[in-house]
């Protein structure tokens, strides 16, 4: 890579930054407070936390404001901030069964054990644009039913996959504690193929949502030749406790609660060397409320388990879905590449000069793209 050092132009750079700050921070409209962003742009905040790999709603909201609503840029800001924080503890493993569900649907079965709890969703609402200039009048809400208080049991429903397991319809992957290695921390060691499943799952949990959905759609449409049935088993959004070991007592203590989305995808096994009398399950989980990401992740998890060592899926998952990786490389194209391009021009001109001579087969420049 060759960049000319960024010299000169400093006053232009400062002025450009000043334009951003003035237009953003002094727009002739009330200040968008952190609380305002948290309550009205919840899904953007959740997406930023997931892609940044840091669960802190207020920080994600502030990044959203600083990035003028650019979610990927906000995730970049939060990940940069995260890298300055000391690592004070490693949490105890989270038990997903402890989730207090705010939403839980099983689209594969009418009575999956426990309630279908729609929670807060517009899944069944027509996409009609509303353009109010303020909150709707309170009278609209007066006739609405107040939902009954949910019981603890309803907030901790059983798992649909457990039902399938009881019916002996699932391939068993649990082989005791011996096959439970320490997970890979993708924030410390970049995962490269071949990677253990924990690295693939962690990479997907932090991936850019759009990139993951795009890759998922590609795997479904099948240009890679691995067409598979897609059934969503279970989808949950809820609160989970975070525990760390207390430095003095050595006992686990709850230090906070975070929201997460969890998905289980059911796969109809049909391969020649697969158990066709059973299903397999793919798993997805990410910070906050981001159903698209969790579902794509669960589907890709099972696709990776089935076809990961055949084609390019693992490589694509690990190397192309990170928003900071891909977005950062794209953004850097805007930095001065004067020297790189100058050398390309020189090679072209040298090639033309060589062609002008009597040499019938002149040495032409190398094609571009080998090193940058």
């Amino acid at each position, binding site marked *: 890579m060759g960049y000319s050092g960024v010299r000169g132009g400093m006053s232009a750079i400062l002025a450009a930054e000043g334009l951003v700050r003035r237009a953003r921070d002094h727009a002739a409209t009330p200040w968008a407070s952190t609380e305002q962003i948290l309550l009205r742009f919840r899904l953007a905040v959740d997406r930023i936390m997931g892609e940044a790999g840091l669960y802190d709603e207020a920080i994600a909201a502030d990044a959203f404001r600083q990035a003028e609503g650019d979610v990927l840029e906000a995730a970049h800001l939060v990940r940069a901030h995260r890298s300055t924080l*000391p*690592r004070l503890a490693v949490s105890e493993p989270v038990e997903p069964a402890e989730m207090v569900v705010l939403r839980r649907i099983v689209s594969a079965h009418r009575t999956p054990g426990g309630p279908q709890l729609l929670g807060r969703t517009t899944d069944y609402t027509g996409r009609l644009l509303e353009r109010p200039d303020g909150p709707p009048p309170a009278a609209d809400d007066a006739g609405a039913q107040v939902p009954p208080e949910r019981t603890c049991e309803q907030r901790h429903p059983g798992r649909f996959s457990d039902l399938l397991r009881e019916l002996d319809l699932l391939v068993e992957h649990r082989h005791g504690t011996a096959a439970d290695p320490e997970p890979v921390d993708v924030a410390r060691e970049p995962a490269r193929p071949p990677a253990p499943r924990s690295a693939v799952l962690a990479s997907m949990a932090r991936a850019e949502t759009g990139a993951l959905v795009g890759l998922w759609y590609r795997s479904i449409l099948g240009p890679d030749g691995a067409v598979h049935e897609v059934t969503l088993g279970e989808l949950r959004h809820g609160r989970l406790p975070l525990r760390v070991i207390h*430095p003095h007592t050595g006992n686990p203590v709850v230090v906070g609660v975070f929201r997460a989305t969890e998905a289980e995808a059911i796969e109809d096994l049909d391969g020649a060397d697969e158990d066709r009398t059973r299903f397999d399950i793919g798993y997805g989980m990410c910070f906050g409320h981001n159903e698209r990401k969790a579902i794509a992740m669960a589907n890709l998890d099972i696709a990776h388990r089935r076809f990961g060592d055949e084609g390019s899926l693992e490589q694509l998952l690990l190397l192309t879905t990170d928003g900071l990786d891909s977005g950062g490389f794209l953004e850097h194209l805007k930095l001065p590449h004067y020297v790189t391009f100058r050398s390309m021009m020189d090679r072209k001109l040298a090639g033309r000069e060589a062609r002008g001579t009597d040499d019938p087969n002149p040495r032409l420049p190398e094609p571009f793209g080998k090193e940058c």
Partner: protein
Amino acid sequence: MSPEAAARRPGQAPTLSPAEVQLVFRAVLEALARPGTPRQLPERPLAELPSALLPVLALSDLATPTCVLENGDRWARTVRTMTSAPMTGPADARLVAVLRQLADGEPVAFRTGSAAAPQDAALVCVRVPEIEAEPAGPGPVWRLEGPGVPGSRLLRVAGLPDGFVSWRDRLGSGFPTGIDLLFVTARGRLAGLPRTTRVGEEVI
């Protein structure tokens, strides 16, 4: 009692605020970038914490093996409690605070990293009674040369055992392996001596 000390619960160990951590980080960065030019650590924590512990407390977390050479284990426990850093012997630590007098010939084996990972070497913070940049008075002095030093610079560090310079030279003989040193006085004056700096011993 300082407001920070008053705000702590009984039994809670003293530590650095996030703002103080950043000030310590900046001072360490500047000290290592310009070897032999003393910097000042933030003053508030010096009333409660040994000055040479501040860089270790600011930089360590659960991924940095850390060692505190002291009489007893009071400050090692503080570092472990406040940062979750794994406490190790001096030979395995990435961050070392030397809070007691080094005996003659004591400089022990510290981690020097490897050619592939020189960043794994130790950063050693040594408490010293006095440091003096460009000293005027007669006595032994170090002449520093290398990156971050335009020409050369004189530095006098008191209270080190004999043979300290040749010991350091031996550790750094396989450059880029070697150790980086910080000298800290009780009042929080801080001078850096990274492994890239060449030290010549003179008497003026």
